[in-house]
């Protein structure tokens, strides 16, 4: 009953947080308690509906091939008809569950973390708006609806990253996020438009049929181009190289924002888009290859940079980029199941990592450099325990959640391409290493006497606890319950463990831990020596491979140059035509007025000559000169 209601009223899931946003913005901006409770109630209700929808999917046997769809026309004209609607299938249900749950937990956490902030109510309003947009994106039935909510999610990200808008760094970070994702949106929009004019529809279900048919007839070349254009959107949104640059700066936002948006929800929108339209991508091997290689490159690239970063949230940001690379690579090797599985488990442990980082930052009054931390396990035992759980999960140690999802990805990669598998394993090694580095430097060792930490309150610890539990069991339970039979594309996947790959990956992760312990375990001396020895490599990694600097140079030189050139042309070339026209007219006028000499006799002479000329002309024209007068 509840399941059935949730399914047919799935449009309530985004609507409830949207209403919370409207109510808070118009009426509750001065009532912090009411605003936060309203947001939490709305989100809680959405969560219950999401659970109901998921239950409905399971009980009614809704599959990816036969989803539940409800839609209505948004606007239409001959040749272009755009719908808005609800699509629920196992993939959507997974995301609905993850988004509503994590948002709810983050909202509860924020009642403690953001307490006392003058923008408290604004925060809850924006988070609600964000949740509404993200949920609208998840249930989208067609590319345009998804694009609409995609951009709205980007707007919320801009508003939330720039939440502390009085800080120049925050406002610049928000701008950067919006701009970078806009570049991605440009590619995505082009792809969508090409799809529209080729197939006259943007509906996922219809395209799932039409595109494979088209490719079977006409070959994959033109469609691959369109698919890659569409992929550019996720490249920006999900932080793939080279449009990843906004993610690390996005840490300017409050930590709950980082946990929610930049770990668990918004950034996976790109992965979700590809998953949602996987029917198109699966018949375009060229596109999949690009996705896979870019994914694995991103995973390695970001992990490389994370090795040397010192700010706790920045390490986590690059870790997110790296894990998103894993999710993309999973899609690229054709395994929708492992990608979605990793999306879910990553949401749990990454959100937990960020919330834990928030807890640490809260306690240390925003001291973010992990090299200034240490020994926090004594003063913040709960946080330490939960962060440790998350580290084990992300490193893929069995039986924690990350093990199952990452293992699936590695297995899928191994089946398709050995180089990708090896590179992915290398990235996994680096992941284990830098996460262990973070944990060791923050929680183990001797406490820094400058810090006076205290454990965080219950409002912050309880959500973290929930996530910690999910990081432990959030892998094994879906695995055992047959995640791969529901969330899949194509024939069902058996739930089995490839012990060779699993064993290898566990050993790799443990090696990563061991290396981290060796370098950082006993104080900073070994790490300092290593920093000096690795010299250039270290500098490259620490400076994020200078990608930001390259972009800024490009912006200043080309964009700025073209802008200044256009303005110059406007004033001096186009403008010169107009301005010289009026100056010329004026000059001509000045010259011509000299004809008015005031000399009466001159005027009379002119009149005489004109009359003579006119008479001659008239006579010539009418022929009377020739005829001869009758005089």
């Amino acid at each position: 009953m509840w399941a059935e209601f949730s399914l047919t009223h799935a449009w309530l899931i985004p609507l409830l947080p949207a209403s919370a946003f409207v109510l808070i913005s118009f009426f509750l901006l001065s009532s912090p308690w009411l605003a936060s409770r309203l947001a939490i109630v709305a989100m809680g209700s959405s969560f219950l509906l999401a659970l109901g929808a998921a239950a409905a999917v399971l009980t009614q046997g809704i599959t990816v091939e036969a989803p539940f769809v409800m839609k209505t026309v948004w606007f239409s004209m001959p040749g272009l008809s755009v719908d808005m609607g609800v699509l629920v299938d196992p993939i959507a249900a997974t995301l609905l569950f993850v988004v509503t749950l994590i948002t709810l937990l983050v909202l509860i956490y924020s009642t403690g973390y953001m307490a006392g902030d003058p923008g408290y109510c604004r925060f809850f309003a924006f988070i609600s708006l964000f949740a509404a947009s993200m949920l609208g994106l998840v249930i989208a039935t067609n590319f345009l609806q998804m694009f609409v909510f995609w951009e709205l999610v980007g707007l919320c990200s801009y508003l939330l990253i720039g939440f502390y808008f009085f800080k120049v760094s925050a406002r610049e970070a928000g701008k950067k996020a919006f701009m970078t994702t806009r570049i991605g949106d440009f590619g995505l929009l082009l792809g969508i438009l090409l799809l529209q004019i080729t197939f006259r529809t943007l509906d996922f279900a219809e395209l799932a049929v039409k595109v494979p048919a088209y490719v079977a007839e006409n070959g994959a070349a033109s469609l691959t181009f369109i698919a890659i254009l569409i992929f550019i959107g996720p490249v920006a949104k999900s932080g793939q190289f080279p449009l990843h640059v906004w993610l690390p700066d996005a840490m300017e936002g409050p930590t709950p924002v980082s946990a929610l948006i930049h770990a668990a929800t918004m950034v996976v929108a790109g992965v979700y888009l590809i998953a949602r339209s996987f029917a198109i991508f699966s018949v375009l091997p060229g596109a999949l290859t690009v996705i896979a290689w870019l994914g694995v490159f991103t995973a390695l690239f970001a992990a490389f940079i994370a090795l040397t970063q010192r700010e706790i949230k920045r390490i986590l940001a690059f870790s997110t980029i790296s894990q998103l690379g894993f999710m993309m690579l999973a899609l690229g090797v054709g395994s929708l199941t492992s990608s979605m599985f990793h999306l879910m488990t990553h949401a749990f442990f990454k959100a937990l990592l960020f919330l834990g980082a928030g807890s640490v930052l809260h306690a240390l009054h925003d001291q973010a450099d992990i090299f200034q931390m240490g020994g926090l396990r004594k003063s913040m035992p709960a946080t330490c325990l939960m962060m440790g759980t998350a580290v084990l999960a992300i490193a893929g140690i069995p039986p924690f959640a990350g093990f199952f999802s990452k293992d699936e990805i590695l297995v899928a990669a191994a089946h398709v391409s050995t180089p990708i598998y090896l590179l992915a394993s290398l990235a996994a090694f680096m992941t284990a290493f830098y996460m262990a580095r973070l944990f060791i430097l923050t929680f183990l060792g001797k406490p820094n006497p400058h810090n006076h930490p205290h454990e965080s309150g219950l409002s912050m610890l309880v959500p973290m606890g929930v996530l910690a539990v999910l990081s432990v069991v959030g892998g094994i339970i879906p695995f055992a319950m047959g995640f791969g039979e529901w969330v899949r594309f194509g024939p069902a996947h058996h739930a089995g463990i490839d012990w060779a790959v699993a064993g290898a990956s566990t050993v790799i992760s443990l090696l990563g831990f061991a290396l981290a312990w060796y370098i950082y375990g006993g104080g900073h001396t070994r790490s300092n020596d290593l920093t000096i020895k690795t010299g250039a490599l270290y500098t490259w990694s620490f400076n994020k491979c200078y990608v930001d600097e390259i972009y800024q140079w490009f912006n200043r030189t080309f964009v700025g140059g073209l802008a200044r050139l256009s303005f110059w042309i406007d004033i001096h070339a186009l403008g010169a035509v107009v301005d010289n026209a009026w100056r010329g007219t004026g000059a001509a006028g000045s010259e011509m007025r000299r004809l008015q000499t005031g000399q009466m006799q001159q005027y009379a002479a002119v009149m005489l000559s004109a009359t003579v000329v006119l008479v001659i002309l008239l006579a010539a024209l009418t022929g009377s000169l020739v005829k001869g007068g009758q005089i």
Partner: protein
Amino acid sequence: MIGLSHYLLVSAALFGLGLFGLLTKRNLIAVLMSIELMLNSVNINLVAFSRYTAADASAGQVFSLFIIAVAAAEVAVGLALAYAIYRGRGTVSVDEIDWLKW
């Protein structure tokens, strides 16, 4: 015999004299006198034509009477203007009366 063409020649000569005076005389009064000459030449022209060619002999003569009246009025106004200019600016030399210019 004395025919129409003789009268026309005389009137043309008078007109030419008047025109020459209009265009070249320096004194404003002389210009006015030249204008009078031109008007009178036109009168001769009209009367000659009415005598030699027109069906209704009175048409041209009536027209000349009109012209005489108008010429008189115009000279009156012109001389009044000339006097006003002389009183205001102290000159009736056409070369110097060029204030309505750029």
